[in-house]
């Protein structure tokens, strides 16, 4: 009974209450009921512009990500060529970049004084650096780079499930390669495309770092909320939060509904089609060359960051390449207590949050797995909510609902815990689903008590999934930026906040060294996680 109270206490207090508080609060700006803030929102051109921009940028992001991710998945699935495996592995490289770190790297590469911009200027003899990304195009560029991975992963997984016999049946019935694609393969992939569109759209609506750092005055809702809060205009912040949440959720429901209509059980036991080796000389060169360009493009942000992390702070001004290099940036991170403090903060807060996620997640998945009906659906809904809502929304709801805790050290780790509930539960759920119920029954029939069966049979089987899910939650919290910026206090400032403040002081080297540290930790955690439970099958857990 205690466990049920624990499960629902957390869901109701940490998830449901803040959101209801925000929703209701948006109608009570001065303590009395009023729709004035909503009228004000829609009467303000800049607010309307922010809403339009958010939806517009997210829609274009979906189109761009699809245009990159789907063809890449097809090429890698259908054809065999030199370097295919390398490209296949590197295709997920954007996943390694925490949001803020990736954006900074793009700034160094393609911004006003970016290396690529300056190189192209010299090579092409232009008056000014190019592409000099800023504004909407910069945001879309960053989004396409980091979110095409969703389309790539969903489409690859979908293609794996299309039985070769399905395509051969179409062939023997007279379908040309194009007809086969249009009438069989693409329709079978619709659920994958819908899933990818959903994740991409929602991530794009929630995107905070790209417009904040790179946006150059472009208004989007996620950032406007932060600005309103910063300016003390809480009623406006609440209204914008509700509108951002509702537009995200309505797209979620729309796509889920569409997905439901196009759901078919793929038999899934079939053999996937054989890869065609590329034989013709020209095609070989094109494939290998295109693959090499893609690999370089995908790794540039990581390499750039690695390079920058050795640059002396303040040394790089107008030169093409930074002139002075040093290892001082890294030495300082661990030697100088002032520089080490953000790392220590991030570590202890992520550890506490993840430990709480695991304990609560195990209890919740264990209790929920045999339930059905209303209670189950209600719990599932609340569990998925912190994932479905943009980070800004979750953060501001918590800040406002628990304003009496504002300025305390524990509010930030609590926020990490809430935001990572869906990640951990999904990972644990997947592990639990792989356990045949009869295994537990077998243990009990052999004389084990129920608690003995759980400790000696169920837990060991769930452990790999639990560790993998925990690692994922840990690294997410470690590089977390959106909610951190809303609730951090100086004494618990995490790495991402320190990166931003170093950047603002033009200490590019120090900022990059922090970024490289995060990338390394993420890479290690992902590798360990993959070894523990096999390759990532669920792109949503990313």
């Amino acid at each position: 009974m205690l466990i049920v109270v624990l499960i629902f206490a957390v869901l109701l207090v940490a998830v449901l209450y803040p959101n209801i508080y925000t929703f209701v609060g948006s109608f009570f700006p001065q303590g009395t009921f009023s729709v004035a803030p909503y009228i004000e929102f829609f009467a303000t051109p800049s607010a309307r512009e922010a809403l339009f921009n958010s939806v517009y940028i997210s829609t274009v992001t979906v189109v761009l990500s699809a245009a990159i991710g789907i063809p890449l998945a097809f090429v890698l699935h259908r054809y065999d060529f030199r370097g295919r495996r390398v490209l296949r592995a590197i295709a997920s490289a954007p996943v390694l970049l925490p949001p803020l770190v990736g954006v900074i790297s793009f700034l160094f590469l393609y911004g006003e004084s970016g290396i690529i911009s300056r190189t192209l200027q010299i090579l092409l003899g232009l008056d000014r650096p190019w592409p000099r990304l800023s504004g909407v195009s910069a945001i879309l560029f960053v989004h396409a780079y980091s979110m095409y991975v969703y389309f790539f992963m969903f489409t690859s997984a979908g293609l794996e499930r299309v039985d070769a016999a399905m395509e051969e049946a179409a062939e023997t019935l007279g379908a040309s390669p194009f007809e086969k694609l249009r009438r069989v393969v693409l329709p079978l992939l619709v659920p994958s495309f819908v899933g990818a569109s959903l994740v991409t759209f929602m991530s794009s609506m929630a995107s905070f770092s790209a417009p904040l750092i790179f946006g150059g005055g472009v208004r989007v809702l996620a950032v406007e909320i932060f600005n309103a809060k910063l300016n003390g205009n809480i009623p406006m912040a609440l209204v914008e939060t509700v509108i951002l949440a509702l537009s995200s959720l309505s797209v979620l429901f729309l796509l889920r509904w569409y997905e439901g209509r196009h759901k078919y059980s793929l038999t899934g036991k079939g053999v996937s089609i054989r890869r065609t080796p590329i034989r013709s000389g020209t095609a070989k060169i094109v494939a290998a060359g295109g693959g090499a360009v893609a690999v370089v493009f995908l790794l540039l942000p990581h390499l750039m960051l690695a390079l920058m992390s050795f640059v002396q702070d303040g040394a790089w001004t107008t030169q093409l390449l930074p002139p002075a290099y040093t290892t001082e940036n890294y030495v300082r991170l661990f030697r100088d207590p002032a520089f080490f403090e953000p790392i220590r903060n991030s570590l202890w807060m992520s550890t506490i949050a993840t430990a709480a996620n695991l304990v609560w997640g195990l209890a919740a998945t264990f209790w929920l797995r045999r339930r059905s009906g209303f209670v189950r659906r209600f719990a599932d809904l609340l569990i998925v909510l912190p994932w479905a809502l943009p980070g800004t929304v979750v953060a501001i709801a918590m800040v406002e609902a628990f304003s009496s805790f504002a300025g305390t050290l524990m509010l930030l780790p609590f926020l990490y815990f809430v935001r990572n509930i869906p990640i951990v539960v999904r990972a644990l759920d997947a592990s639990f689903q792989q356990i045949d119920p009869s295994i537990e029954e077998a243990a009990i029939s052999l004389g084990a008590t129920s608690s003995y069966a759980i400790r000696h049979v169920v837990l060991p089987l769930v452990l790999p999934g639990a560790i993998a899910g925990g690692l994922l939650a840990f690294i997410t919290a470690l590089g977390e930026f959106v909610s951190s910026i809303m609730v951090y206090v100086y004494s618990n400032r995490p790495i991402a906040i320190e990166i931003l403040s170093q950047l603002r002081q033009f200490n590019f080297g120090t900022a990059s060294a922090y970024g490289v540290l995060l990338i390394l930790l993420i890479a290690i955690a992902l590798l360990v996680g993959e070894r523990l439970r096999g390759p990532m099958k669920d792109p949503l857990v990313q």
Partner: protein
Amino acid sequence: MAHLELLDLTKTFGPTTAVRALSLIVNRGEILSILGPSGCGKTTTLRMIAGLETPTSGEIHVNGKNVTSVPARSRNIGLVFQNYALFPHLDVFENVAFGLRTRRLTPEGVVGERVRKALANVRMEAFERRAVHQLSGGQQQRIALARALAVEPEFLLLDEPLSNLDPSLREDLRDQIRSIVRHLNMTTIFVTHDQQEALSLADRIAIMDSGVCRQIGTPDEVYSRPADSFVARFLGKANVLAGEFFGLGGGELAVVRPENIKLGEGTRNATVAKVTFEGAIVNYVLEASGQQLSVRSFHGNRIYDVGEQVRFDIPPHGIHRIAK
């Protein structure tokens, strides 16, 4: 009369040879079964006929024309897959209509008529608008058959058509397939590892082993006069005995089917080593002159016990001689 002719067909996958120098003639309206254990090359042969695999060497002729390099989509062949390969995103009607809507350009008005005719052939008219996953295995099989037949193919190819069905359904569906293809006078080739299926459904059987065709003949021919001991053992039970047992030359073997051994008569003596009672049929294992003999007899007056001495006889027509 040769509708389909395979000439010296060979297919290798890397170092392994799946099919070796296979030659075969199928006549119009004939039902041919390719029978063999798994991995014998029978499915590869079927896929080469369909155009889904390109032969390493050899030729495929249809109506006297060489089609070896014609792609699958232009061969006009109806293929029913082992797992049916119905399109899950289309309903029954659209599945059957699929082939009519490819580049064959059947006028849209005729499509409906042709689909309904194909569904009527397999007695599935009432299921036009069903989703594929709502159908049972047997129904899916019939829709796959209707889809293959709707395009009025040159011939019909079936890959292990009954292997995914319950045993109780198999016999029923086997008879249906037979009557449909007979009715349409459709040249049919089906691949199976089930000898009962092959013996009861085919006009002729080609028996394959390790990529080589061991024998082609009518069911009675291959059963009663197997070409070698592999065929004899693969088709039902067989006692393959040294020729000396019957006073034949040492270079020969004798094949005796268990049902051709008569108990309780004749001049030979044996000891009963094992008895298995199956109701109407009783199976024995006898020991005679150091040889083990399987015997299959109808439940007669009495059942012999283990250890009992019994006389037996093998009529001359029950002894088939093969080379060692």
